């Protein structure tokens, strides 16, 4: 379908910054759309004119491309501005009888100005990182095996005289083993979580997702940190890998998507 300027009555919004900072002179957004900036109340929004309906596709490749294009615009702005508030995907402002989409967006910026400025001040110079820790499967299995050997030996030396008592004894041993593993997992989570809290301004705990069955996930968090905080955190996490046998994976830096 051919698009005409008459169809482009809505604004797809990428992000917001302070108006006095620098920004990219030219940026291409979703499907090559030209990204423009719009200012109100000392704030600036980056957006492109689009049709007044959401971007939707069942094609995963199209979705991935859109997401990459959205992220690219936000990142380009973020590189030049001191702080950026990324908009969530498909934030599309529409026009109405009381004004076009740009008037609506300007009104919104004016109304939300104090809150947005506070957030921008808190985010200045900070980046988001995703941090996941996993149990190293080899050392995890060794630990389990050692425990089982010890329990087996204990069972041999205290073998009960009846089958019923033997069953109860075995159940008690299993329960003990489970509690030991759970307790270890809890301790390891605390050990991994503490340096993240210590070296970040904000932390958001996410659902832990295991990479594979033999590599259980201990922790999955997003944190907001300066480059200096992240440098210190990296040192601490590397020390944890050596000392505790955990595996740490870090993704980032991201613009602060999770902290707005």
């Amino acid at each position, binding site marked *: 379908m051919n698009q005409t300027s008459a169809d482009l009555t809505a604004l797809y919004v990428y992000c917001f910054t302070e108006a006095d900072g620098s920004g990219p002179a030219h940026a291409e957004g979703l499907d090559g759309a030209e990204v423009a900036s719009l200012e109100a109340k000392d704030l600036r929004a980056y957006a492109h004119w689009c049709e007044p*309906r959401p971007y939707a596709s069942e094609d995963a490749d199209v979705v991935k491309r859109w997401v990459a294009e*959205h992220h690219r615009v936000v990142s380009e702005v973020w590189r030049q501005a001191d702080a950026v508030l990324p908009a969530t995907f498909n934030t599309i402002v529409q026009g109405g009888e009381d004004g076009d989409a740009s008037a609506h967006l300007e009104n919104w910026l004016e109304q939300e100005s104090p809150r947005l400025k506070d957030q921008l001040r808190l985010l200045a110079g900070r980046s988001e990182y995703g941090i996941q820790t996993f149990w190293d499967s080899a050392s995890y299995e060794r630990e389990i095996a050692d425990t089982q050997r010890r329990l087996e030996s204990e069972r041999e030396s205290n073998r009960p005289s009846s089958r019923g008592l033997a069953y109860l004894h075995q159940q008690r041993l299993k329960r003990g083993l489970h509690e030991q593993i759970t307790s270890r997992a809890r301790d390891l989570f605390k050990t991994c979580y503490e340096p993240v809290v210590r070296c970040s301004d904000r932390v958001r705990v996410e659902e832990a997702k295991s990479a594979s069955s033999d590599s259980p996930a201990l922790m999955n968090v997003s944190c907001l940190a300066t480059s200096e905080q992240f440098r210190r955190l990296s040192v601490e996490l590397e020390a944890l890998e050596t000392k505790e046998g955990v595996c740490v994976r870090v993704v980032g830096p991201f613009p602060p998507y999770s902290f707005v």
Partner: protein
Amino acid sequence: MNIVGTDWESGPSSSSDAVVELLDRVLNRGVVLYADIVITLAGVPLVGLNLRAALGSIEAMARAVSAVAPTDSVRLDESAPRGSGDARSEGSADSEQDERDLGAERPNAAAFVAEEVRPWSR
């Protein structure tokens, strides 16, 4: 320690896990405008339910691929022609159809949709 960068601007070459992390952030987080001025249908934000169904497929694909090849398995394909497979102009914003599609894609579609229709927050 494995540190995965996010420099997708100059050419995507990230691991499947990193792609999923980016999708999660861009699609689910960030500043949300209230409903008066954003595109809505009967007060329900139309944040492209089809996108979420596609995301479910991406996550499943990424998990499957990462099981056999942990890095560089799923790439953001910026080289694809713009608009290829783009259903945006094909009226895919029909919410009922979206929900049916979603149900076919994801076993836990009901919970997923319920999460989607929560009111916009300020």
